[in-house]
């Protein structure tokens, strides 16, 4: 229970209770996690995620992005030390994507351990420090971005993460030097 108290899980599809309003979701979360000073914290989160005016609305009246923001606000209310994000950018508009990245980076700077599960490799490349690649449920590699690049792109440290990913998950292909993109793109 102590571990769960410090944990937040934010699924890719916002899991909200259709009969609870925005503010009732936060009250519910505050009680579950015994959040001290819950009211000002909830208000700050609602302001940050631009949900203040929608505090009395039900999830059915919110857009996909708004629902995602509400799920994240609930996840952050108890100031968790570990946050699991599953595809955090799904359904967000460009403004939402920018704000979400900023929030994740801020939480990381504030000391939270953030685990992101994503297929958006540019997001991973942009905000993650460590990488774990799974293939059919098994770990292929785990390390810092630099370490992973070193392993799969020995001849070209600038190889994109996308290329690294394809090499790492290629069927029965031992890791080796990445092909020269210029050579590969050149027609025979």
């Amino acid at each position, binding site marked *: 229970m102590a571990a*769960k108290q410090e944990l937040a899980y934010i699924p890719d599809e916002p899991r909200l209770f259709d009969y609870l309003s925005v503010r*009732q979701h936060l009250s519910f979360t*505050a009680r579950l996690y*015994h959040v001290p000073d819950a009211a000002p914290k909830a208000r700050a989160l609602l302001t940050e995620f631009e949900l203040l005016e929608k505090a009395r*609305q039900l999830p*059915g009246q919110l857009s996909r992005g708004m629902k995602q923001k509400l799920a994240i606000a609930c996840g952050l209310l108890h100031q968790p030390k570990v946050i699991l994000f599953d595809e955090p950018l799904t359904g967000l508009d460009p403004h939402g994507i920018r704000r979400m990245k900023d929030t994740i980076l801020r939480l990381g700077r504030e000391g939270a351990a953030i685990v992101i599960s994503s297929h958006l490799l540019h997001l991973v490349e942009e905000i993650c420090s460590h990488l774990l690649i799974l293939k059919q449920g098994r770990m292929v590699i785990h390390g810092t971005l630099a370490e992973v690049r070193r392993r799969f792109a020995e001849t070209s440290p600038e190889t994109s993460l996308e290329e690294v990913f394809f090499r790492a998950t290629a069927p029965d292909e031992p890791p080796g030097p990445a092909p020269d993109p210029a050579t590969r793109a050149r027609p025979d």
Partner: protein
Amino acid sequence: MVAALVYLQFCSWANLLLSQVRRLRHPQYLLGLLAGLAYLGLVFWRPFTARHPEPAAGINPANPPSFLEGGSVEHLAAGGLFLLAAFTWLLPSKRAALDFSEAEIAWLFPAPLPRRMLVHYRLLKTQVGLVFSALIMALVTSAASRGRFVWAMLPGWWILMSALEMHRLAAGFTRTRLLDRGLPNWARRLLVLGVLVAMGSLIWRNLAPHLAGLSLTEPPSLPPWTVAIEDALGNGIVGAILLPFRTLARPLVILASGAGLITLLPALGVLAFLYLWALKSAVGFEDESLDRAERRTRLVQAARTGNWHLAAEQQSEGHAPFPLPPRGLRLLALTWKNLISAQLLLTSPFLIVLGISLLCGLLAFRFTLPEAPFLKFLAALLAGILPMVFILGPELARFDLRQDLPQADLLKTYPLPGWQVVLGELLAPALVLTFIQWLMIGAAVIALPAIGQRGEWSLGTRVSLAAAAMILTPALNLTLLLLHNGTALLFPAWVRPPGNAGSAGSAAAIDAMGQRLLLMLAHLAGLLVALLVPCALGGAVFLLTRLVFAWTIALPLAALVAALALGGQGALALKLLGDRFERMDITD
């Protein structure tokens, strides 16, 4: 293009059938289907095998026909059909829409298909449901002839149901046309009401002379009644207006007595007229159909996940049952949440106040008019309903773990041990059901003196009965809720929300019904087992205390011991279910 639509519909039916056959490999569907078929067999087969006297041929002067035989049935059915048709014109306010799925809209609307073809496709699609409903109605209505004319009645019912569907379609198109031509909904409704009032006065004018000569105290089995009905509904303008409806109803009446299928021809004529009307009046229905499809998808998804509030299209924030400060028992957060979920149905403060006020009103009535026959009726009614509320209440009050299981991954992240999650979820329906049952027990006990055979029941007796019942109520509710939620947790594939028969289709509806029957039997068996020890303990306490105290004291004491025993068993079950919840693999 026609071939493509036929192919689509044929493949849909075939694949639906195939998928339903394939899923019979899973025992829950196979057993469900067998139980459902056995139930339907019992319901529909028994009348055919029961010994009835042979139906009399012709009219026996010694046994005059009931007013529900012969022509009067035809006229009454025509009147009923007319009313149904009138409501199609009176109630709806939206523009015409056809029921298409979202996939059909996405594929068919942008395709180069004329609107008429879409209407035909829609009509073709309704056929499975219509034929199935017609078959059920033919089985039911041919029971009197021991099923001899079931196949003869099938086309009669099919024509009637198709005609109603066709009329609904044509009326929708025509309403939209009228709206586009400047006739607002209120004016149309006024017009329809005017027709209804005029029809009512004409019927009354025809009926009034007959009523003077009829005895209202005699059973309505006299020929004059038949004459009166035929005169009121079969003559003059009323008869002319009801003629098409009578044409549709007549085959059902005469086919039931073995008439030839030739009698269907006039009804087929009416159906053909309605078909042409629907085609000729077709207007743009695409936008409204899209809205309807989206709404239906949303409601079905909501209902399948148990979100009845979304299904009921809740538009405003629900009233919190009590303030929820951040400190205190964590599990109460789940109870609080579920009470908000239930409030549209059951826990509205208005309903609570209304219930208590009614109880107080009943008490005042009891003291003012203790011999009123109403009290006797009420006590008998409550005595009949209460067991049903105890048994069916936990099945219907699903604002608990059953509603939240689709979100189990989220629930498992909450910092609560499994047993607290289960308890927090159960408390809301337990509280609501207990409140309702206490009100009913209170009302029954207040009304009880009126049915006492040996004079009025004493105050002590009534208090003792009420106390015993009220002590047992929460423990019984928790036990039943544990059984229902335990089933959902241990055998999730067996538990489907009401109204969800899985994928559409009659076979799916039958296996869903069978599954519910089996589950109900299993829950009843579980309840009986759970009651064994508490009943034994309660009985022993009653016998022992009876040696010292009057039974009015012994009964609540025995109930208390039984409730505690039930509670002890419940705590054990709660712990086991909590452990199961913690171990549950949400990826399954």
